[in-house]
Protein backbone atom coordinates (compact mmCIF):
# COMPACT_ATOMS: atom_id res chain seq x y z
CA UNK A 1 0.00 0.00 0.00
CA UNK A 2 1.78 3.07 -1.19
CA UNK A 3 -1.15 5.37 -1.17
CA UNK A 4 -3.51 5.63 1.70
CA UNK A 5 -6.96 4.42 0.68
CA UNK A 6 -9.93 6.30 2.08
CA UNK A 7 -12.00 3.15 2.25
CA UNK A 8 -10.85 -0.02 3.99
CA UNK A 9 -12.53 -3.23 5.07
CA UNK A 10 -12.34 -3.63 8.80
CA UNK A 11 -12.03 -6.66 11.04
CA UNK A 12 -12.68 -5.45 14.63
CA UNK A 13 -12.45 -8.83 16.40
CA UNK A 14 -14.27 -9.78 19.60
CA UNK A 15 -12.27 -7.63 22.03
CA UNK A 16 -12.71 -4.37 20.16
CA UNK A 17 -16.36 -5.19 19.49
CA UNK A 18 -17.11 -5.78 23.17
CA UNK A 19 -14.74 -5.31 26.14
CA UNK A 20 -12.58 -2.69 24.41
CA UNK A 21 -15.27 -0.61 22.67
CA UNK A 22 -13.31 2.50 23.65
CA UNK A 23 -10.42 1.18 21.55
CA UNK A 24 -12.77 0.61 18.62
CA UNK A 25 -14.54 3.97 18.72
CA UNK A 26 -11.39 6.00 19.31
CA UNK A 27 -9.71 4.24 16.38
CA UNK A 28 -12.65 4.92 14.08
CA UNK A 29 -12.96 8.52 15.17
CA UNK A 30 -9.24 9.05 14.66
CA UNK A 31 -9.28 7.66 11.11
CA UNK A 32 -12.52 9.49 10.36
CA UNK A 33 -10.77 12.77 11.04
CA UNK A 34 -8.47 11.97 8.09
CA UNK A 35 -11.41 10.90 5.90
CA UNK A 36 -10.53 7.22 6.12
CA UNK A 37 -13.71 5.15 6.29
CA UNK A 38 -13.92 1.62 7.62
CA UNK A 39 -16.57 -0.87 6.55
CA UNK A 40 -16.82 -3.90 8.80
CA UNK A 41 -16.54 -7.27 7.07
CA UNK A 42 -20.16 -8.41 6.85
CA UNK A 43 -20.93 -11.05 9.49
CA UNK A 44 -17.27 -11.55 10.54
CA UNK A 45 -16.55 -14.22 13.16
CA UNK A 46 -13.98 -14.70 15.91
CA UNK A 47 -10.44 -15.24 14.57
CA UNK A 48 -10.20 -18.31 16.80
CA UNK A 49 -8.30 -16.51 19.56
CA UNK A 50 -5.58 -18.24 21.61
CA UNK A 51 -7.84 -21.07 22.64
CA UNK A 52 -8.83 -22.61 19.30
CA UNK A 53 -5.32 -23.31 18.01
CA UNK A 54 -4.50 -24.77 21.42
CA UNK A 55 -7.09 -27.50 21.05
CA UNK A 56 -7.75 -27.92 17.30
CA UNK A 57 -5.50 -26.53 14.54
CA UNK A 58 -7.95 -27.29 11.76
CA UNK A 59 -10.77 -25.44 13.49
CA UNK A 60 -8.41 -22.49 14.07
CA UNK A 61 -7.64 -22.38 10.33
CA UNK A 62 -11.31 -22.77 9.39
CA UNK A 63 -12.53 -19.95 11.63
CA UNK A 64 -9.85 -17.54 10.42
CA UNK A 65 -10.40 -18.64 6.80
CA UNK A 66 -14.11 -17.76 6.88
CA UNK A 67 -13.17 -14.12 7.46
CA UNK A 68 -10.66 -14.18 4.59
CA UNK A 69 -13.38 -15.52 2.28
CA UNK A 70 -15.94 -12.94 3.50
CA UNK A 71 -13.66 -9.95 2.92
CA UNK A 72 -14.52 -8.08 -0.30
CA UNK A 73 -11.81 -8.49 -2.94
CA UNK A 74 -9.70 -5.49 -3.98
CA UNK A 75 -9.99 -3.81 -0.62
CA UNK A 76 -7.39 -3.93 2.12
CA UNK A 77 -8.50 -5.32 5.45
CA UNK A 78 -7.58 -3.23 8.47
CA UNK A 79 -7.03 -5.13 11.73
CA UNK A 80 -6.18 -3.41 15.01
CA UNK A 81 -5.92 -6.40 17.37
CA UNK A 82 -2.45 -7.99 17.19
CA UNK A 83 -3.95 -11.38 18.09
CA UNK A 84 -6.52 -11.30 15.27
CA UNK A 85 -3.86 -9.97 12.89
CA UNK A 86 -1.61 -12.92 13.67
CA UNK A 87 -4.41 -15.51 13.39
CA UNK A 88 -5.73 -14.18 10.06
CA UNK A 89 -2.20 -13.69 8.72
CA UNK A 90 -1.24 -17.23 9.71
CA UNK A 91 -4.35 -18.61 7.99
CA UNK A 92 -3.57 -16.63 4.83
CA UNK A 93 0.00 -17.95 4.83
CA UNK A 94 -1.23 -21.52 5.33
CA UNK A 95 -3.79 -21.28 2.52
CA UNK A 96 -1.42 -19.52 0.12
CA UNK A 97 1.08 -22.35 0.61
CA UNK A 98 -1.37 -25.14 -0.22
CA UNK A 99 -3.48 -25.43 -3.37
CA UNK A 100 -5.18 -28.42 -1.84
CA UNK A 101 -6.39 -26.43 1.17
CA UNK A 102 -7.45 -23.51 -1.03
CA UNK A 103 -9.60 -25.82 -3.13
CA UNK A 104 -11.06 -27.48 -0.06
CA UNK A 105 -12.14 -24.17 1.44
CA UNK A 106 -13.28 -22.75 -1.91
CA UNK A 107 -15.63 -25.71 -2.15
CA UNK A 108 -16.77 -25.27 1.40
CA UNK A 109 -17.50 -21.55 1.16
CA UNK A 110 -18.59 -21.78 -2.48
CA UNK A 111 -16.60 -18.76 -3.58
CA UNK A 112 -13.09 -18.14 -4.92
CA UNK A 113 -10.13 -17.66 -2.58
CA UNK A 114 -8.35 -14.34 -2.98
CA UNK A 115 -4.69 -15.06 -2.30
CA UNK A 116 -3.80 -11.40 -2.79
CA UNK A 117 -6.08 -10.11 -0.05
CA UNK A 118 -4.05 -7.52 1.84
CA UNK A 119 -4.20 -7.62 5.62
CA UNK A 120 -3.04 -4.34 7.09
CA UNK A 121 -2.32 -3.77 10.75
CA UNK A 122 -3.36 -0.41 12.19
CA UNK A 123 0.33 0.28 12.87
CA UNK A 124 1.20 -0.14 9.21
CA UNK A 125 -1.48 2.36 8.27
CA UNK A 126 -0.21 4.77 10.94
CA UNK A 127 3.36 4.48 9.68
CA UNK A 128 2.14 5.40 6.17
CA UNK A 129 0.07 8.29 7.49
CA UNK A 130 3.01 9.56 9.46
CA UNK A 131 5.25 9.24 6.41
CA UNK A 132 2.80 11.32 4.38
CA UNK A 133 2.95 14.07 6.97
CA UNK A 134 -0.59 13.58 8.31
CA UNK A 135 0.51 14.40 11.86
CA UNK A 136 2.49 17.56 11.10
CA UNK A 137 -0.18 19.86 12.49
CA UNK A 138 -0.51 17.83 15.65
CA UNK A 139 2.97 18.41 17.03
CA UNK A 140 3.02 19.34 20.67
CA UNK A 141 -0.55 18.29 21.39
CA UNK A 142 0.50 15.75 24.05
CA UNK A 143 3.12 18.04 25.50
CA UNK A 144 5.13 16.63 28.36
CA UNK A 145 3.20 13.39 28.82
CA UNK A 146 5.70 10.73 29.87
CA UNK A 147 4.67 7.51 28.19
CA UNK A 148 5.84 3.92 28.56
CA UNK A 149 5.29 2.31 25.14
CA UNK A 150 4.03 -1.24 25.59
CA UNK A 151 3.88 -3.70 22.70
CA UNK A 152 3.45 -6.95 24.63
CA UNK A 153 3.88 -9.97 22.38
CA UNK A 154 2.86 -7.99 19.29
CA UNK A 155 6.48 -7.78 18.14
CA UNK A 156 6.88 -11.57 18.30
CA UNK A 157 5.69 -14.06 15.68
CA UNK A 158 6.34 -17.64 14.66
CA UNK A 159 9.56 -18.31 12.68
CA UNK A 160 7.56 -18.96 9.49
CA UNK A 161 6.38 -15.33 9.60
CA UNK A 162 9.65 -13.67 10.58
CA UNK A 163 9.87 -11.77 7.29
CA UNK A 164 6.63 -9.92 8.00
CA UNK A 165 6.68 -6.23 8.83
CA UNK A 166 7.85 -5.28 12.29
CA UNK A 167 6.50 -2.12 13.89
CA UNK A 168 9.00 -1.75 16.72
CA UNK A 169 9.44 1.93 17.55
CA UNK A 170 6.19 3.19 16.04
CA UNK A 171 4.56 4.07 19.36
CA UNK A 172 7.68 5.96 20.45
CA UNK A 173 8.03 7.86 17.16
CA UNK A 174 4.38 8.78 16.92
CA UNK A 175 4.10 9.86 20.54
CA UNK A 176 7.26 11.95 20.20
CA UNK A 177 5.81 13.62 17.08
CA UNK A 178 2.73 14.53 19.10
CA UNK A 179 4.87 16.04 21.87
CA UNK A 180 4.79 13.12 24.29
CA UNK A 181 7.93 11.85 25.95
CA UNK A 182 8.37 8.12 25.41
CA UNK A 183 10.57 6.64 28.13
CA UNK A 184 13.02 3.77 27.73
CA UNK A 185 12.22 0.72 29.80
CA UNK A 186 12.88 -3.00 29.80
CA UNK A 187 9.35 -4.43 29.68
CA UNK A 188 7.97 -3.06 26.42
CA UNK A 189 7.69 -6.51 24.85
CA UNK A 190 7.12 -8.59 27.96
CA UNK A 191 3.97 -10.76 27.74
CA UNK A 192 0.96 -9.63 29.84
CA UNK A 193 -0.08 -13.22 30.60
CA UNK A 194 -3.07 -13.17 28.20
CA UNK A 195 -5.67 -15.82 29.06
CA UNK A 196 -3.78 -17.09 32.11
CA UNK A 197 -5.31 -14.01 33.74
CA UNK A 198 -8.48 -16.11 34.03
CA UNK A 199 -7.23 -19.59 34.83
CA UNK A 200 -3.90 -18.81 36.54
CA UNK A 201 -4.41 -15.28 37.92
CA UNK A 202 -1.37 -15.55 40.23
CA UNK A 203 0.93 -15.93 37.22
CA UNK A 204 -0.70 -13.04 35.38
CA UNK A 205 -0.48 -10.88 38.51
CA UNK A 206 3.22 -11.53 38.78
CA UNK A 207 3.86 -10.53 35.18
CA UNK A 208 1.55 -7.51 35.21
CA UNK A 209 2.97 -6.11 38.46
CA UNK A 210 6.51 -6.52 37.18
CA UNK A 211 5.55 -4.56 34.07
CA UNK A 212 3.79 -1.85 36.13
CA UNK A 213 6.68 -1.53 38.55
CA UNK A 214 9.08 -1.24 35.64
CA UNK A 215 7.04 1.56 34.09
CA UNK A 216 6.79 3.47 37.39
CA UNK A 217 10.50 3.10 38.11
CA UNK A 218 11.34 4.36 34.63
CA UNK A 219 9.51 7.59 35.35
CA UNK A 220 6.48 7.01 33.11
CA UNK A 221 3.17 8.67 33.92
CA UNK A 222 1.14 6.26 31.85
CA UNK A 223 1.39 3.18 29.65
CA UNK A 224 0.26 3.01 26.03
CA UNK A 225 -0.80 -0.39 24.73
CA UNK A 226 -1.10 -1.72 21.21
CA UNK A 227 -3.43 -4.55 22.22
CA UNK A 228 -6.85 -4.56 23.89
CA UNK A 229 -6.07 -7.80 25.74
CA UNK A 230 -2.90 -6.29 27.25
CA UNK A 231 -4.90 -3.21 28.23
CA UNK A 232 -7.45 -5.32 30.09
CA UNK A 233 -4.88 -7.52 31.83
CA UNK A 234 -2.77 -4.59 32.98
CA UNK A 235 -5.87 -2.89 34.40
CA UNK A 236 -7.39 -5.89 36.18
CA UNK A 237 -4.30 -7.66 37.52
CA UNK A 238 -2.20 -4.81 38.92
CA UNK A 239 -2.07 -4.27 42.67
CA UNK A 240 -3.33 -1.09 44.34
CA UNK A 241 -0.37 1.24 44.83
CA UNK A 242 1.42 -0.23 41.82
CA UNK A 243 -0.56 1.23 38.97
CA UNK A 244 -0.46 3.85 36.24
CA UNK A 245 -3.26 4.85 33.87
CA UNK A 246 -3.20 2.79 30.70
CA UNK A 247 -4.27 4.09 27.31
CA UNK A 248 -5.13 2.36 24.10
CA UNK A 249 -2.82 3.83 21.47
CA UNK A 250 -5.87 4.99 19.50
CA UNK A 251 -7.16 6.96 22.51
CA UNK A 252 -4.04 9.08 22.80
CA UNK A 253 -3.98 9.61 19.04
CA UNK A 254 -7.56 10.84 19.17
CA UNK A 255 -6.83 12.95 22.22
CA UNK A 256 -4.11 14.70 20.23
CA UNK A 257 -6.74 15.57 17.63
CA UNK A 258 -9.49 16.80 19.88
CA UNK A 259 -9.24 17.22 23.61
CA UNK A 260 -12.96 16.73 24.06
CA UNK A 261 -13.33 13.54 22.09
CA UNK A 262 -12.42 11.35 24.96
CA UNK A 263 -14.89 11.48 27.84
CA UNK A 264 -16.87 8.32 27.09
CA UNK A 265 -13.82 6.20 26.43
CA UNK A 266 -12.08 7.05 29.67
CA UNK A 267 -15.20 6.25 31.68
CA UNK A 268 -14.72 2.62 30.66
CA UNK A 269 -11.27 2.43 32.21
CA UNK A 270 -10.79 0.62 35.50
CA UNK A 271 -7.86 2.91 36.30
CA UNK A 272 -9.16 6.42 35.82
CA UNK A 273 -6.81 8.36 33.55
CA UNK A 274 -8.66 11.69 33.86
CA UNK A 275 -6.77 13.10 36.87
CA UNK A 276 -3.49 12.67 34.99
CA UNK A 277 -4.88 14.23 31.81
CA UNK A 278 -6.32 17.14 33.79
CA UNK A 279 -3.01 17.66 35.56
CA UNK A 280 -1.28 17.74 32.21
CA UNK A 281 -4.03 20.02 30.86
CA UNK A 282 -4.78 17.56 28.13
CA UNK A 283 -8.49 17.56 28.95
CA UNK A 284 -10.50 20.40 30.44
CA UNK A 285 -10.68 20.31 34.23
CA UNK A 286 -14.07 19.24 35.52
CA UNK A 287 -15.27 21.88 37.97
CA UNK A 288 -15.89 20.72 41.48
CA UNK A 289 -14.55 17.22 40.97
CA UNK A 290 -11.98 16.39 43.54
CA UNK A 291 -9.14 14.35 42.25
CA UNK A 292 -9.12 11.22 44.40
CA UNK A 293 -6.33 9.29 42.82
CA UNK A 294 -6.38 7.10 39.80
CA UNK A 295 -8.80 4.49 41.02
CA UNK A 296 -12.40 5.55 41.00
Amino acid at each position, binding site marked *: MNDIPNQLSYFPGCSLATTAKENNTSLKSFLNHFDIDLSEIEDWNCCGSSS*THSVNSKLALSLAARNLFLAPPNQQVLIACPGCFLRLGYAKMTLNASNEKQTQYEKHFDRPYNKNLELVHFFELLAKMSGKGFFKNLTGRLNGLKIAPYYGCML*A*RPPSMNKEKNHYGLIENTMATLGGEPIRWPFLS*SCCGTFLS*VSKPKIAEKLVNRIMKGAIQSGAECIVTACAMCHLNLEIRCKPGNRLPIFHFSELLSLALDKKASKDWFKRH*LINPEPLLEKKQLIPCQNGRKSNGFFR
Partner: protein
Amino acid sequence: MNGITLDKTAQEFVNQVEELSHSNLSQCWHCLCCSGGCPFSKDMDVLPNSIIRMIQFGMKEQALNSSTIWLCVGCNTCSMECPNAVDMAAIMDALRQMAIRKNAKIAEPGVLAFHNAVVDSISRYGRTHKLEIMMRYKFSEKDLFSDIDLGLKMLSKRKLDLLPSKVKDKKSIQSLFKMSGEVS
Protein backbone atom coordinates in the same frame (compact mmCIF):
# COMPACT_ATOMS: atom_id res chain seq x y z
CA MET B 1 21.01 -44.98 37.80
CA ASN B 2 18.23 -45.45 35.29
CA GLY B 3 19.39 -45.23 31.71
CA ILE B 4 17.18 -44.19 28.82
CA THR B 5 16.60 -46.76 26.13
CA LEU B 6 15.65 -45.32 22.77
CA ASP B 7 13.31 -47.57 20.86
CA LYS B 8 11.19 -47.24 17.73
CA THR B 9 8.37 -45.50 19.57
CA ALA B 10 10.71 -42.60 20.38
CA GLN B 11 11.15 -41.87 16.69
CA GLU B 12 7.42 -42.26 16.10
CA PHE B 13 6.69 -39.62 18.72
CA VAL B 14 9.25 -37.28 17.15
CA ASN B 15 7.65 -37.82 13.74
CA GLN B 16 4.15 -37.14 15.04
CA VAL B 17 5.17 -33.89 16.76
CA GLU B 18 7.17 -32.73 13.75
CA GLU B 19 4.29 -33.43 11.42
CA LEU B 20 1.73 -31.63 13.57
CA SER B 21 3.97 -28.64 14.29
CA HIS B 22 5.70 -28.37 10.89
CA SER B 23 9.02 -28.06 12.66
CA ASN B 24 12.32 -29.90 12.84
CA LEU B 25 13.26 -30.85 16.39
CA SER B 26 16.87 -31.66 15.43
CA GLN B 27 17.43 -27.95 14.83
CA CYS B 28 17.31 -27.34 18.58
CA TRP B 29 20.73 -26.73 20.09
CA HIS B 30 19.47 -26.67 23.66
CA CYS B 31 21.06 -23.26 24.06
CA LEU B 32 18.21 -22.40 26.49
CA CYS B 33 17.40 -19.09 24.78
CA CYS B 34 13.71 -20.08 24.56
CA SER B 35 13.58 -21.03 28.23
CA GLY B 36 15.45 -17.90 29.26
CA GLY B 37 13.11 -15.65 27.28
CA CYS B 38 9.89 -17.42 28.23
CA PRO B 39 7.94 -15.29 30.75
CA PHE B 40 6.30 -18.45 32.11
CA SER B 41 9.26 -20.82 32.43
CA LYS B 42 9.58 -20.24 36.19
CA ASP B 43 6.08 -21.60 36.67
CA MET B 44 6.53 -24.60 34.36
CA ASP B 45 7.53 -28.02 35.70
CA VAL B 46 9.74 -28.67 32.64
CA LEU B 47 11.67 -26.01 30.70
CA PRO B 48 10.52 -25.53 27.07
CA ASN B 49 13.77 -26.81 25.53
CA SER B 50 13.70 -29.83 27.87
CA ILE B 51 10.30 -30.68 26.37
CA ILE B 52 12.05 -31.06 23.01
CA ARG B 53 14.65 -33.33 24.60
CA MET B 54 11.90 -35.41 26.20
CA ILE B 55 10.24 -35.85 22.82
CA GLN B 56 13.56 -36.97 21.33
CA PHE B 57 14.03 -39.46 24.16
CA GLY B 58 10.54 -40.86 23.64
CA MET B 59 9.35 -39.64 27.05
CA LYS B 60 5.85 -39.22 25.69
CA GLU B 61 3.92 -39.58 28.89
CA GLN B 62 6.10 -37.10 30.79
CA ALA B 63 5.90 -34.54 27.99
CA LEU B 64 2.12 -34.82 27.62
CA ASN B 65 1.61 -34.74 31.39
CA SER B 66 3.75 -31.64 31.91
CA SER B 67 2.30 -28.33 33.07
CA THR B 68 4.56 -26.64 30.51
CA ILE B 69 2.30 -27.40 27.55
CA TRP B 70 -0.65 -25.72 29.30
CA LEU B 71 1.17 -22.69 30.71
CA CYS B 72 2.54 -21.81 27.27
CA VAL B 73 0.23 -19.09 25.93
CA GLY B 74 1.75 -18.99 22.45
CA CYS B 75 3.18 -15.48 22.84
CA ASN B 76 6.06 -16.49 20.52
CA THR B 77 8.69 -14.80 22.69
CA CYS B 78 10.67 -18.07 22.44
CA SER B 79 10.61 -17.82 18.64
CA MET B 80 12.16 -14.38 18.81
CA GLU B 81 14.95 -15.72 21.03
CA CYS B 82 15.64 -18.94 19.12
CA PRO B 83 18.72 -18.74 16.87
CA ASN B 84 17.52 -21.72 14.83
CA ALA B 85 13.90 -20.82 14.05
CA VAL B 86 12.38 -23.68 16.02
CA ASP B 87 8.64 -23.04 16.26
CA MET B 88 8.25 -23.80 19.95
CA ALA B 89 4.71 -22.42 20.17
CA ALA B 90 3.61 -24.77 17.38
CA ILE B 91 5.27 -27.70 19.16
CA MET B 92 3.30 -26.81 22.31
CA ASP B 93 0.08 -26.66 20.24
CA ALA B 94 0.87 -30.13 18.88
CA LEU B 95 1.51 -31.56 22.36
CA ARG B 96 -1.66 -30.03 23.80
CA GLN B 97 -3.75 -31.50 21.03
CA MET B 98 -2.08 -34.91 21.43
CA ALA B 99 -2.67 -34.79 25.18
CA ILE B 100 -6.37 -34.13 24.59
CA ARG B 101 -6.81 -36.85 21.93
CA LYS B 102 -4.87 -39.45 23.90
CA ASN B 103 -6.74 -38.69 27.11
CA ALA B 104 -3.44 -37.97 28.86
CA LYS B 105 -3.44 -36.64 32.40
CA ILE B 106 -3.92 -32.87 32.07
CA ALA B 107 -1.57 -31.07 34.43
CA GLU B 108 -3.53 -27.81 34.31
CA PRO B 109 -7.19 -28.78 33.90
CA GLY B 110 -8.26 -25.18 34.59
CA VAL B 111 -6.46 -23.93 31.50
CA LEU B 112 -8.12 -26.58 29.34
CA ALA B 113 -11.49 -25.74 30.91
CA PHE B 114 -10.93 -22.12 29.88
CA HIS B 115 -10.04 -23.08 26.29
CA ASN B 116 -13.14 -25.27 26.14
CA ALA B 117 -15.32 -22.42 27.41
CA VAL B 118 -13.95 -20.10 24.70
CA VAL B 119 -14.39 -22.64 21.89
CA ASP B 120 -17.87 -23.41 23.19
CA SER B 121 -18.76 -19.72 23.03
CA ILE B 122 -17.47 -19.49 19.45
CA SER B 123 -19.51 -22.57 18.48
CA ARG B 124 -22.69 -20.94 19.77
CA TYR B 125 -22.27 -17.34 18.70
CA GLY B 126 -19.41 -17.35 16.20
CA ARG B 127 -17.77 -14.83 18.54
CA THR B 128 -16.53 -14.90 22.10
CA HIS B 129 -18.91 -13.77 24.82
CA LYS B 130 -16.60 -12.92 27.70
CA LEU B 131 -19.17 -12.83 30.51
CA GLU B 132 -20.50 -16.28 29.64
CA ILE B 133 -16.99 -17.67 29.21
CA MET B 134 -16.09 -16.42 32.68
CA MET B 135 -19.29 -17.82 34.21
CA ARG B 136 -18.88 -21.22 32.54
CA TYR B 137 -15.26 -21.39 33.53
CA LYS B 138 -16.03 -20.45 37.13
CA PHE B 139 -18.80 -23.07 37.32
CA SER B 140 -16.63 -25.79 35.83
CA GLU B 141 -13.88 -25.01 38.33
CA LYS B 142 -16.38 -24.62 41.20
CA ASP B 143 -14.68 -21.32 41.95
CA LEU B 144 -17.42 -18.71 41.93
CA PHE B 145 -16.06 -16.12 44.32
CA SER B 146 -12.34 -15.55 43.75
CA ASP B 147 -12.85 -12.75 41.18
CA ILE B 148 -16.32 -11.58 42.12
CA ASP B 149 -15.22 -8.03 43.03
CA LEU B 150 -13.42 -7.73 39.74
CA GLY B 151 -16.40 -9.11 37.82
CA LEU B 152 -18.74 -6.57 39.41
CA LYS B 153 -16.33 -3.73 38.74
CA MET B 154 -16.05 -4.79 35.09
CA LEU B 155 -19.82 -4.98 34.81
CA SER B 156 -20.24 -1.52 36.31
CA LYS B 157 -17.72 -0.15 33.80
CA ARG B 158 -19.59 -1.97 31.03
CA LYS B 159 -16.47 -3.93 30.21
CA LEU B 160 -18.55 -7.10 30.18
CA ASP B 161 -21.57 -7.10 27.89
CA LEU B 162 -24.60 -8.97 29.20
CA LEU B 163 -25.62 -10.13 25.72
CA PRO B 164 -23.28 -11.73 23.18
CA SER B 165 -22.24 -10.17 19.90
CA LYS B 166 -23.34 -12.79 17.37
CA VAL B 167 -22.68 -14.00 13.84
CA LYS B 168 -25.93 -13.99 11.82
CA ASP B 169 -25.11 -17.04 9.72
CA LYS B 170 -25.02 -19.56 12.55
CA LYS B 171 -25.08 -22.53 10.21
CA SER B 172 -21.83 -21.53 8.56
CA ILE B 173 -20.09 -21.58 11.93
CA GLN B 174 -21.57 -24.96 12.78
CA SER B 175 -20.38 -26.33 9.45
CA LEU B 176 -16.83 -25.20 10.27
CA PHE B 177 -17.00 -27.14 13.51
CA LYS B 178 -18.31 -30.17 11.62
CA MET B 179 -15.54 -30.12 9.04
CA SER B 180 -12.81 -29.63 11.64
CA GLY B 181 -13.42 -32.76 13.64
CA GLU B 182 -13.90 -33.21 17.34
CA VAL B 183 -12.95 -30.59 19.84
CA SER B 184 -11.91 -31.88 23.27
